[in-house]
């Protein structure tokens, strides 16, 4: 369990870093980058190859980020003066090109054999108890600051709602969520039992699942309508309850991660990588938040909205787009280094366009132009991954490859649903969509 949670935390952090790079480019600057994985390939291979030649990891990573930024510079110079769609097309092309180079230039990348046994961060590091406590303190600090921001945000959301109304609606909301959870869990348990006992044919199990979920969804939909008209603060109560449950889940994950640091020597490579990824994510997040709130970030947002206006006000649009593309690329390069360390073997196959697609899913899910949203998007993405890997397998009457296709299909459906009901993303601001030019 601990090992799996560590794995999840690492992947969430990597994808969050990766998504933050894309969010800077697309969410804040409006640059359409359909080949984000290209920056990741460069970051990953550069870091790994340099560190194999004895370059210290931190230097290798920085060089990797630099090379990725350089790619941003090249692509930017070639396309940013043209219409925006050129960037989209060129980035797709470049990302496939780089993957094919990695596949074919075997003298450099060993092609499909992959590169193995490269140095990993903190892998041979056996911390003393006091160092471990220090590491746990750092994690606690990061999580604590995250929770503090979260709490402040939540308080703003329910600021205008009288507390009696909240106190009234929250227990109902808790009951609602809990009963829904129990029902879904129950259906899952029955399905699992049916599947393992082979009591009914596959199509019967499928029918049972579809029917059961349809009934649950419809009845809870009706229930929601009923309750929301009766309780004035229903949606705020539901919001609070959901966030408290999520916060509790987060605390649990934090506890497991901290205990993994405590048992550091059980799996030094992974535990060390978890620490490194979380700290990297926190630093990059903090830096980006600071940047986008600065006059520098304001220019990016202006370019996203209307670059003619930015030009008319004396801003060098081309240069700022280039900076955004390069910085986002460098961040993806760092994500690439982390990714390589997590995989411990890098194959060209690890850098298929699907990785870019995942980054887009994360950014769109959380809400473009919102760094916190990207974090949330990454967390949801990996939670979904975990749930479908471990739970659906036992329940749904499909074999493994069918299940993989099914999972991606559901992501597509979810994204379509999101576009219909909440096109601004989970944390995006509704008002911003309805504003005309």
């Amino acid at each position, binding site marked *: 369990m601990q090992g799996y949670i560590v794995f999840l935390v690492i992947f969430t952090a990597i994808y969050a870093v990766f998504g933050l790079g894309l969010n800077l480019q697309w969410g804040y600057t409006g640059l359409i980058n359909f080949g984000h994985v290209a920056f990741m390939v460069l970051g990953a291979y550069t870091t790994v190859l340099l560190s194999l030649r004895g370059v210290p990891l931190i230097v290798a990573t920085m060089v990797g980020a630099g090379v990725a930024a350089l790619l941003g510079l090249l692509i930017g110079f070639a396309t940013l003066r043209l219409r925006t769609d050129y960037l989209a097309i060129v980035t797709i092309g470049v990302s496939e090109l780089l993957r094919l180079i990695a596949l074919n230039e075997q003298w450099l990348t060993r092609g499909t054999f992959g590169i193995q046994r490269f140095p990993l961060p903190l892998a041979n590091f056996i911390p003393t108890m006091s160092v471990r406590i220090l590491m746990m303190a750092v994690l606690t600090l990061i999580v604590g600051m995250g929770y503090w921001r979260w709490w402040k945000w939540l308080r703003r959301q329910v600021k205008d709602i009288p507390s009696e109304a909240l106190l009234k609606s929250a227990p109902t909301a808790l009951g609602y969520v809990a009963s829904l959870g129990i029902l879904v869990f129950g259906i899952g348990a029955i399905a699992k039992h049916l599947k393992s006992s082979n009591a009914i044919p596959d199509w019967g199990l499928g029918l049972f699942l579809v029917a059961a979920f349809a009934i649950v969804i419809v009845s809870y939909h009706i229930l929601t309508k009923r309750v929301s008209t009766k309780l004035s603060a229903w949606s705020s109560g539901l919001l609070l309850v959901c966030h408290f449950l999520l916060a509790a889940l987060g605390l649990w994950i934090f506890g497991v991660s901290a205990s993994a640091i405590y048992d550091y020597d059980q799996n030094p490579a992974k535990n060390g990588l978890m620490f490194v990824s979380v700290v990297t994510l926190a630093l990059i997040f903090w830096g980006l938040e600071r940047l986008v709130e600065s006059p520098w970030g304001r220019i990016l*947002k*202006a370019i996203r909205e209307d670059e*003619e206006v*930015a030009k008319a006000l004396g801003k060098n*649009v081309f240069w700022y787009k280039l900076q955004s593309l390069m*910085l986002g690329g460098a961040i993806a390069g760092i994500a690439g280094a982390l990714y390589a360390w997590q995989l411990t073997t890098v194959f060209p196959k690890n850098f298929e366009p699907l990785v870019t697609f995942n980054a887009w899913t994360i950014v769109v899910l959380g809400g473009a132009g919102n760094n916190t949203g990207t974090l949330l998007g990454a967390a949801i993405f990996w939670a979904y991954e975990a749930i479908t890997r471990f739970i659906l397998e036992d329940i749904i009457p499909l074999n493994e490859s069918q299940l993989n296709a099914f999972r991606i299909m559901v992501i597509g459906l979810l994204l379509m649903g999101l576009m219909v009901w909440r096109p601004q993303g989970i944390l995006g601001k509704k008002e911003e969509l309805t504003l005309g030019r």
Partner: protein
Amino acid sequence: MVDERSKGTEEADLSSPPLSPSPSPLPSLLSAKALSKNFGGIRVVDRASLDVRQGSITGLIGPNGAGKTTLFNLLSNFIRPNDGEVIFAGEPIQHLQPHQIAQRGLVRTFQVARVLSKLSVMENMLLAAQNQTGENFWNVWLRPGQSVREERHHRERASELLESVGLAHMAQAYAGALSGGQRKLLEMARALMVRPKLILLDEPAAGVNPTLINQICDHIIRWNQEGMTFLVIEHNMDVIMSLCDRVWVLAEGRNLASGTPAEVQHDPKVLEAYLGQ
């Protein structure tokens, strides 16, 4: 609204007696010489020339499709001319990028007001300030204090400008929530925030209610008295008459006439261009 002109700096009044058509001694701030632009074989601007004197409010009029907006685009280099020369503050500028021209103090506005609708009104204003320390990536890290101090200063000035165009109460609202007339006002205030030498206004009164038009004119006159030079495209002749020192008339991309508003208004060629089509 078409009252006697009672504006103008005192020096201007002393040096050039009113109603005298003789060229004033004020130096020229912007002059365009024989600008031409073809769009797919059609000559939209044809050897048009224009001169804007330091401290003046100069008008640019002409029938619809005469090429006025295109001329603005050529002056600010948003569109590159096929031919011709633009001199601003004594230097040729047509080799410069649009943003460099704005940095030198020539700021244009748009015929259809363009605000950044997902930024707040205040952020729209703050964006326009020039030479901000925090606009440099490294300075965000190296000089945060200076950046914050400047920001406070810009915020104050932006508040004053918003106050003066009556948008102070909207400062925190999304700019996209403004009405058409308010957007025109915001765009004008934003142009002033740049602290330019010359502002090109493309139909500041279009689609604006008459009371607001009067307000806008008052503001333009006040800012002009504070030393700002304006070049104004406008179809509303009342506005032109009440604002401008000098008017240039464009028809089918060519210079048709120029002079004081009164002269131009009675010029038979101008009357023909407006009525005889």
